[in-house]
């Protein structure tokens, strides 16, 4: 009773202010409106709007709280019931949300207990939330957990339908193979019966040995022999040359990684910048394989996958890969703590220049401003990364010949750029003209 009276009072003053702004002239209407509004809001103070509550929760609370899982702060489903069992009412929650450190300083027993339990990380004060906002949030937390029965059903249906499609494909292929086999057998038996017929009717079969075979003709004719020999030598030279020049080229190399990291999901769907994880590409020779703490920047919050799936890569598969990451980083997801038992992940290197060629990422990424995709291809579309470019010397040189160097706003080198332009008689210098073809640039 006392509670509703208080909220009535607050609402009265709030609404009064609003109404004065609007400058309504009719006093009676104003009073009626106030009473009406106060009545409705005091009603909702009891119930709360869980839809509004959800958006408020996602905007303000979800940074540290989840509904069903411990995070930076405790799980919040049915928090009011839990607190009621501790003898704490909604007024306590209002006070706590608006300024938790004041509650802790006042010596509140439960507040101090929670504060110590969660590593003395004080909850951010939310003075901007009104009591009605908090009521809405509480209404959202009081909702029962939705059993994802419908989604499971549709998932099962979709997977079974996709399964059935692949199964039907296999059946069709099998049937075709069977038909083909039947055809071969039929033809063979037809040939056999025809021969038997011929024998029965004493028809002489054409004897194939009477003709001189092609290879004998060729051996007898010297000119043909030379032509064939030259053709044979040239074609084998062509194939040997092709084979030898692809040795050491790993274009298309697509190893299986210990943790299935999908660049398509991270860089493509979520649009995370390449340099977010490969941060040392900006400043060092190597592009940098991120240490696991970089993964954990996001995966502390993202513990399951909710995006598109395929038959090969299901939700369970992706969730399992995230669990692999947790195991390697030593992260206990239930307790939201590091166990300290981490182990290195043995990633398989894909792009690997031979030791006798020097390549520096920062020179290309930061100085030249080359897009990562120029050499690595459409990585943001790759579920499993493969080597896009051949990484041969010819490929490097070709790019150096074609790429115009951006010499703008580079005051320190203005003079030498001008002289080089004069020397080559061009407006725009290419990387090759700046010395990008010198042997010693890459081989030393």
């Amino acid at each position: 009773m006392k509670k509703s009276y208080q909220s009535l009072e607050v609402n009265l003053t709030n609404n009064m202010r609003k109404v004065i702004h609007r400058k309504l002239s009719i006093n009676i209407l104003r009073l009626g409106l106030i009473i009406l509004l106060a009545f409705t809001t005091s009603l909702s103070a009891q119930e709360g709007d869980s839809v509004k509550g959800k958006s408020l929760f996602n905007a303000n609370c979800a940074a540290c709280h989840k509904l069903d899982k411990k995070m930076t702060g405790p799980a919040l489903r049915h928090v009011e019931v839990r607190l009621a069992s501790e003898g704490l009412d909604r007024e306590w929650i209002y006070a706590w949300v608006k300024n938790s450190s004041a509650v802790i300083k006042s010596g509140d027993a439960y507040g101090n207990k929670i504060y110590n339990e969660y590593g003395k990380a004080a909850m951010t004060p939310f003075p901007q939330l009104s009591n009605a906002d908090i009521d809405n949030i509480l209404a959202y937390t009081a909702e029962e957990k939705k059993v994802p029965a419908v989604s499971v059903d549709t998932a099962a249906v979709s997977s079974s339908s996709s399964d059935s499609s692949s199964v039907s494909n296999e059946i069709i292929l099998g049937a075709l193979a069977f038909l083909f086999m039947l055809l071969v057998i039929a033809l063979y038996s037809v040939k056999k019966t025809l021969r038997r017929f011929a024998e029965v009717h004493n028809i002489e079969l054409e004897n194939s040995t009477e003709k001189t075979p092609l290879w004998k003709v060729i051996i007898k004719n010297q000119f043909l022999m030379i032509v064939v020999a030259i053709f044979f030598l040239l074609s084998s030279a062509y194939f040997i040359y092709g084979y030898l020049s692809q040795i050491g080229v790993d274009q298309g190399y697509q190893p299986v990684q210990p943790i299935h990291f999908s660049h398509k999901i991270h860089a493509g769907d979520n649009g995370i910048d390449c340099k977010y994880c490969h941060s040392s590409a900006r400043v060092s020779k190597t592009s940098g394989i991120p240490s696991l703490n970089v993964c954990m920047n996001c995966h502390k919050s993202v513990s399951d996958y909710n995006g598109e799936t395929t038959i090969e890569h299901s939700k369970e598969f992706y969730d399992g890969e995230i669990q692999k990451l947790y195991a390697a980083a030593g992260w206990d997801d239930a307790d939201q703590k590091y166990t300290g038992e981490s182990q290195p992940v043995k990633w398989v290197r894909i792009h690997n220049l031979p030791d006798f060629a020097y390549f520096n990422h920062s020179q290309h990424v930061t100085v030249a401003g080359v897009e990562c995709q120029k050499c690595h291809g459409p990585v943001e579309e790759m579920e499993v990364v493969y080597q896009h470019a051949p990484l041969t010397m010819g490929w490097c040189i070709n790019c150096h010949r074609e790429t115009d160097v951006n010499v703008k706003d580079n005051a320190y080198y203005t003079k030498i750029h001008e002289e080089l332009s004069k020397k080559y008689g061009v407006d725009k210098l290419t990387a090759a003209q700046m010395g990008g073809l010198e042997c010693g640039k890459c081989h030393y």
Partner: protein
Amino acid sequence: MKSLIKILAIAVVLVVVSCKKDTAPNYQFMPNMYESAGYETYGEAAFPNGVEAQLPAQGSIARGFIPFDIDNTTEGYNLAKETLKSPLDSTQVDLVTGKELYNIYCGICHGNKGNGQGNLVKREKILGIPSYDDAGRAITEGSIYHTIYHGKNAMGSYANQLNEEERWQVVSYVLKLKADLEK
């Protein structure tokens, strides 16, 4: 007999063609010219845990790095919030660099405008990212730097992706975004 030879030849060709495996690297001409004799970055090495990437000896300080003495605690956060000031003066602040780095490392969650509406938030992967003009947090340059360095709550540390100077450039840019939001 002849047809058997033909079938064999076709089978050999098929096997040779299908042998190209993408999951294994190709042959090399002279492996000892290709493979480095020294340890390669992230390679295997003869250390107790078998990796080349070792932690520096405890207490060592890398050249050009200055230790950050404020602890990763609530007290440390409050101390930084009140006392820590940017070493960059107005001529050293480079908002272009700051923006570039911010958009790579922070914008994905905090939004390129700092309003807490980054791509991961819009796609509901990570929720509850506050806007920089949040009154309850009232961030200052010291608290921003402390948060980048140590992380806070669900946010991790960005100390290994940004060096000290870059962190302060990002701090300057965050303050600019905060000022823009408060307009």
